């Protein structure tokens, strides 16, 4: 079962801006999904189309098996969105915002849930203040509480941690992880890639309105991540033409302390570490030290998006 099945979704804004171009993604129910991309990639456009704030130009979306565009009310009841832009009714206090939103979604305000949300998001002591008096971080948390108040099965957060300090961010993530463990599907965008790598079990990277990759996080980190084998000889090694030919499969690079080889995967799927190591020893003898460094999410992100931009230009 998928929380979201996005099929060929496209958006061309009135000014001719093609913000999203034939995007297809599936978000499994119960997953903690990271939607990543550089600024202007089209993340907010995608989210806003699901939220019914932006009109789609083409494509279809199914939410928990229901057609989003023809069964809007059914879907909206099960969806909570934290928009990227912060906006509140200046006449409302946090507790009123949450009660109002409950009502708007057709739910009787559940005061114990509202109290829990306020407490967990560290807003309880500010519950009676006007929203204008809240700091940026508090407002962002109030947006999160607002998105959760009707107990949606799918929560979409568009940069929920922008401008939130490390400590608070950690607690916010903890809270979201808890929601996730209760079965809520969570899709979020963020620029903190290390945090996304740690938290999310699925990831999609989009740029210029197109999907560059979309898969389980573990798969991305294992299969897509490139690894380098560093061999330390305690001295600079100058690669001869013969060295380059012999090690061609590993794209050898010189480094201050030795050489660096690129690892890949053999036909069976196992790493080429062993072969590379043997080849290096055959050319330069045993190293003093060696190590493997794999790309993390940020490296992969940068590699994919840079490559995409190079191909485009």
């Amino acid at each position, binding site marked *: 079962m998928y929380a979201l099945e996005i099929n060929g979704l496209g958006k061309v*804004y*009135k000014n001719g801006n093609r913000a999203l171009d034939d995007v297809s993604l599936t978000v499994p129910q119960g997953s903690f999904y990271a939607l990543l991309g550089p600024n202007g990639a089209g993340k907010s456009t995608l989210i*806003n189309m699901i*939220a*019914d*704030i*932006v*009109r789609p130009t083409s494509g279809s979306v199914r939410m928990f098996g229901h057609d989003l565009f023809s069964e*809007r*009310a*059914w879907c*909206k*009841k099960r*969806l909570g*969105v934290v*928009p990227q*832009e912060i*906006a*509140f*009714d*200046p*006449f409302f206090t946090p507790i009123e915002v949450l009660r*109002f*939103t409950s*009502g*708007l*979604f*057709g*739910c*009787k305000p559940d005061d114990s849930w509202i109290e829990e949300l306020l407490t967990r998001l560290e807003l309880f002591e500010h519950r009676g203040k006007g929203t204008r008096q809240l700091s940026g971080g508090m407002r962002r948390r109030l947006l999160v509480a607002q998105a959760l108040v009707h107990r949606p099965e799918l929560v979409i957060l568009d940069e929920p941690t922008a401008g939130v300090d490390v400590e608070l961010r950690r607690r916010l993530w903890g809270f979201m992880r808890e929601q996730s463990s209760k079965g809520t599907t969570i899709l979020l965008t963020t620029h903190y890639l290390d945090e996304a790598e740690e938290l999310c079990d699925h990831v999609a990277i989009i740029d210029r309105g197109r999907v560059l990759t979309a898969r389980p996080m573990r798969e991305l980190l294992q299969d897509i991540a490139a690894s380098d084998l560093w061999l330390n000889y305690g001295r600079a090694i100058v690669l001869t033409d013969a060295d380059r030919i012999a090690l061609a499969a590993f794209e050898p690079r010189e480094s201050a302390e030795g050489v660096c080889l690129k690892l890949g995967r053999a036909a069976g799927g196992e790493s080429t570490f062993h072969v590379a190591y043997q080849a290096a020893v055959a050319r330069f003898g045993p190293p003093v030290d060696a190590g493997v460094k794999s790309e993390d999410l940020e490296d992969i992100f940068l590699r994919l998006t840079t490559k995409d931009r190079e191909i485009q230009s």
Partner: protein
Amino acid sequence: MRPINPRGTWTLFLREIRRFLKVKMQTIVTPALTAMLYLVIFRYAMGDRDVPGMEIDYFTFLVPGLAIMAMMQNAFANTSSSMIMGKVMGMQIYLLMAPLSAIEVVTAFLAAAVVRAMIVATVFLAVLMPFVDISLQHLGLILLYGVAASLIMGGLGLISGMWAENFDNVAMVTNFVIMPLTFLSGVFYSVKQLPELWQQINAFNPFFYLTDGFRYGFLGIGDTDPFASVTIVLGSVAVTFVLCWYLWHIGWRMKD
């Protein structure tokens, strides 16, 4: 959207009520006072004269007209200000994201506009009660025309608010469209006093029928037959409602 969300509609309606009650000085008291000010000024300007062609003094003639003028202007102000405020401050997206059908949203907004209009008119009339003999000859007509005028004006306010991009745009519509049309709707005079040409032009002012019918409800006299105009009035309400529904449905000037 098929499924209805009565609680959501009610919640939005209550919010709209609260919105104007929080600033009741500006939304209730001032409009009622303004109407009274007009009354006092015209009372002194016109003296005890009767309205030509009607057996009624000016003062009594003015009261229902001023009441419905205040209703129309306040119904318009309520929806247009809410809409433009939501837009400018970015809050409208919460309404777009909520599981409410366009009919429900429009109903909540218009109902709140009617309530505000009724409160303003009631305050105005209640204060005048000791000074004028306000008869209610046809209560049904009064309610029908009062509610219809508020619905039409509330609807126009909704549309103007959706169309507008800033508060200035709304002020422009208010000052250059709504004010003249309501002022010239026969609040201050009987059309029979007007030159022939103006009488004909006036026949195309929709607010003229509303004002005249409403006043007929109080005084039992008017320039038109309010029973004959009922279909026009109800038709106008329906057209306004359908237009509001359609524009909200497509997210006119709200959804990119």
